[in-house]
């Protein structure tokens, strides 16, 4: 009954489900629910596979941080699976593979094992994007993903060469022992770039436009919220424990991320396709999350990831469903989408307001608190950049909302079936509820993910 089941069972069922193609989505939902139940039963603690000593043995760590991440990922996958049973049934096994990869990614504290799970979830991601019927974009994503993960492997191996261990805890102690940051810069950069490709950070995410630009109701939410959330969690864990940026590396990374935030929002401001607006805004959000981790504001970064994941799911589902029925996703052609379906419109508006960070919604509390934390750390210039970006973001989201609420010249009618509506209402209510009642948000603090003790077979 250990944490390994979270990875093993989805993997096993993934391969079994290939045999019984028809029942794949149902299997997926069952496994997802099983994982969720397991998560509530398991206690925290590490797991060693194969009983070997630390450089050889692969060990997984389940603590509050990874528990939150896993609940979010599995829940979202189950929700997306339920919504897409009808038209993307045959992707059930791929989603199972993705679930296994992502669970493993979040759980493992062994660097090489991290690389393996990164590749598994990568492959699952390439297969998911292939559902967009745009092979060139998928190939683009595959090539970049492969390069990214091999760079990551390169970094890991250099670290292994220097410190002889692959385990998180041991590595952290070894680095701390001979604290000469200069020699560690190259591997950390390579690993940061490797992860940056997957986590959609600015210079490395040219695949995002292709992958999400033509996404559908299954691939959009999967890539934009599930993968983004998982990789943000993992990137956060690595930045917060392993990298601990200093000196020139810190300045370069901060510059990269700030440029990422500003440019992400400017790109969204300049695009007229609705999906492009959403994907560039999620690029900007990802850079903000990374920036928060770099500055040590871990607690609010976690809440930001969750809030963004939920809002982006709603937004992508709404827009992708509408684009499928209308055919083109230009804001002009989608005009007046909400005139007919008020409920979906309300949910979309609340999600957008939460992403913009306006009061009465959870986005505002998170934004206010992480800005106060940044101000406490004296980072005024970062606050200025984030706020300018949020101003530009506010303007293009309002421009989008105003177009969607009021009908243009041609009449469009998009029907959302009941299951979509239920999901939207639940998420919207959650955003609204936590917006005003913020007590539970203060429970976790910045040291939520301290990977310190070395998990040995002892």
């Amino acid at each position, binding site marked *: 009954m250990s944490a390994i089941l979270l990875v093993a069972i989805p993997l096993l069922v993934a391969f079994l489900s290939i045999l019984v193609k028809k029942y794949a989505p149902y299997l997926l939902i069952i496994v997802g629910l099983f994982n969720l139940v397991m998560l509530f039963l398991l206690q925290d603690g590490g797991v060693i596979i194969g009983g070997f000593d630390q450089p050889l043995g692969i060990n997984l760590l389940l603590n509050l941080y990874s528990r939150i991440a896993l609940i979010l990922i599995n829940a979202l996958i189950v929700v997306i699976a339920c919504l897409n049973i009808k038209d993307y049934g045959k992707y059930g096994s791929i989603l199972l593979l993705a679930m296994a990869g992502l669970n493993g990614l979040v759980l493992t504290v062994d660097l090489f094992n991290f690389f393996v799970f990164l590749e598994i979830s990568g492959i699952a991601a390439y297969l998911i994007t292939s559902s967009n019927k745009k092979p060139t974009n998928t190939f683009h994503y595959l090539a970049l993903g492969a390069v990214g993960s091999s760079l990551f492997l390169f970094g890991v191996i250099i670290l292994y060469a220097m410190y002889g261990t692959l385990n998180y805890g041991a590595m952290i102690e070894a680095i701390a022992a001979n604290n000469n940051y200069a020699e560690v810069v190259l591997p950390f950069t390579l690993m940061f770039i490797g992860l940056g490709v997957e986590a959609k950070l600015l210079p490395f995410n040219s695949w995002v436009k292709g992958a999400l630009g033509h996404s559908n109701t299954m691939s959009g939410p999967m890539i934009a919220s599930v993968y983004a959330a998982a990789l943000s969690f993992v990137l956060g864990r690595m930045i917060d424990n392993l990298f601990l940026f200093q000196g020139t590396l810190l300045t370069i990374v901060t510059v*990269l991320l700030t440029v990422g935030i500003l440019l992400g929002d400017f790109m969204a401001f*300049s695009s007229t396709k609705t999906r492009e607006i959403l994907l560039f805004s999620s690029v900007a959000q990802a850079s903000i999350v990374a920036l928060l981790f770099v500055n040590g504001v871990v607690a609010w970064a976690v809440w930001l990831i969750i809030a963004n994941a939920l809002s982006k799911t709603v937004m992508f589902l709404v827009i992708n469903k509408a684009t499928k029925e209308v055919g083109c996703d230009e804001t002009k052609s989608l005009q007046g989408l909400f005139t007919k379906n008020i409920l979906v419109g309300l949910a979309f508006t609340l999600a957008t307001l939460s992403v913009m960070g306006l*009061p009465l919604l959870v986005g505002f509390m998170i934004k206010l608190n992480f800005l106060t934390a940044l101000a406490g750390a*004296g980072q005024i210039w970062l606050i200025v950049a984030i706020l300018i970006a949020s101003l530009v973001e506010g*303007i293009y989201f309002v421009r989008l909302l*105003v177009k969607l609420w009021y009908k243009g010249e041609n009449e469009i009618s998009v029907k959302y079936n009941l299951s979509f509506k239920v999901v939207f209402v639940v998420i919207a209510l959650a955003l609204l509820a936590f917006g005003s009642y913020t007590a539970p948000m203060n429970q976790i603090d910045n040291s939520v993910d301290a990977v310190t003790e070395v998990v040995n077979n002892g």
Partner: protein
Amino acid sequence: MASIEYLILILVGASFLAYLFTKLNTYLGSVFTILATMFVFASLAGYGFGMGLDTTVNYLPWFTFNQTYLGFYFVIIIAFVYLMVSFFHPYYLGQYKYKDSYNMLFLLSLAGIIGAFYTDNFLQLFFFFELIIWTTMFLIPQGKSREAAVSYFGFSVAGSVAMLIGIFLIFSSTGQLDITSGLAAISGTNAIIVFILFLIAGFAKLGAFPLHIWLPIAHGNAPHPFSPVLSGALVKLGAFIGILALVRIVPTANLLVDSINLPLGQWLVAILGSISIVFGTLMAIKEDDAKKLLAYSSMSHGGYILVAFSLMNSVAFAGGFYHILAHAIASAAAFMAIAAVARATGTTKMKELGGMIHKMPITYLAYLVAIISMAGIPPMGGFISKWLIFMAVINKGMIFVAIAIFFGSVGSFLYVFRPLAALFLGQEFREYKHVKEAPIMMLIPTFILMGLNVYTGVFPSFILNFINNILGELGYAALNVTSSSIINVFDGQGILNPALISLVFAVGVFIAFIIFILLKKSRSVSLMDTYTAANFVHDEHLLHYSVDFYAPLERLYEKHTNWMTKFYESLAKKVKEIGNLGKYLFMSKNIGTTMLWIITIIILLLWGVAL
């Protein structure tokens, strides 16, 4: 014992109830909104004047409230304008697309306003400030144009972003999030930066010179019952923040402009205020849409408020506070009159309207009283506030600001008269023969506002005494006002007895009336029978002179009237270009570019570390 927190919770609850009621039937929902606003206003007025509202908080998690005279002064004015406007809802909401959300957002923004003025914590102020912005933003697109909401939201959020940066600058330098102590604690260059940031927020919300583009767009195109709220009430938020900056932080105390012993910051704000007065007046004279014209007048009155609060003496502050009240009432009344005309005729364009006085005389009287106060003419409230500001500027001897102020006050007479002549007077157009006077429910607020305009003009002592409390709270000497409302300024330099002026004016009118009555009764003739050098004109449109009313004046400055609009359009274009550049650089189709970026970063880093 009404408590602030209950008021806010009641309002939020009432907004959801209003949503449901309006879904059932518009009239019911709007009446409910009127009752809700009336209840809130009554409890505020009842307990607020004596600072009697209790500030205990037991539901809202991290909110703390405290009462100040300054905050209460703003809340009572804005709540009053909200109440007056809510009377209009039953008649206007019928033709809006999302009428149920209209009532809901209307009450939500009122809750935000009550919260914003009763807090002493910066973050809470920002919370309510943003709440007001996005609730009012969703109301604007229900009017004529959609882009109005985007530009309104853009400028308001720009203002609130500047304020937030200022707040965090205070927090990071002094660790205080409390308004009074935070503003007192900062000093040196931080104080200057925070001063500038707060002023940007004030200017954005007030629609003063550099950030005024959204004012005509938003007020002109907002739904008819909402533009009085926009210009009467929401503009005062900017004034509140401007006061925070101008009165509480005096950043450049040492850099005095020696000839008129005023800190440099204050002097620059006075100059910007006067530019917005002149610009607002010139643009208002040229404007053809009545609501846009009144929007520009709000801009110029915003300029007056800024000048008043940048003169650093109690007479100017008293003038500024009084002007906030007088302008709020006058512009709300004027906008409501225009809304009544727009409801009856469907347009606010001056070239399509004329002769409304024949069918809507009471609306005409309401508009007349409003513009007398806006132009600052004696029997009405506007005169007293303008007089106080004039005396302060004269006492300080600021010549260039004085030019702008005098130009503004005479210019305001020009542009407020224009809708009066074009909309109301003149021949009665054929197409508006069927028009009826506004219904009784809509006339109640007009009568109340007319009475209030006259009251503030004739007996200002009660209001000026309350303003003295505010001045005391801000640490300035009180204004010398006797019980019979005789105002003595700069110990004798200027003495004003508004009651006497109104009495003498009444006596004069009585004498003129006697002369008029004694003489022979004159033969009443239709408006078509006018002296047209004996040409036979039968189409009343030809006889109605309302298009380009001040043509010779407009010709003098028509070439350079849109500096700022071009500036903001190019700014938006620049951001788009940067976005496209980003897409070109980072989002290109072939993989080579991304690889290039990866390689450069690695090389850059190694070169950086290795050195």
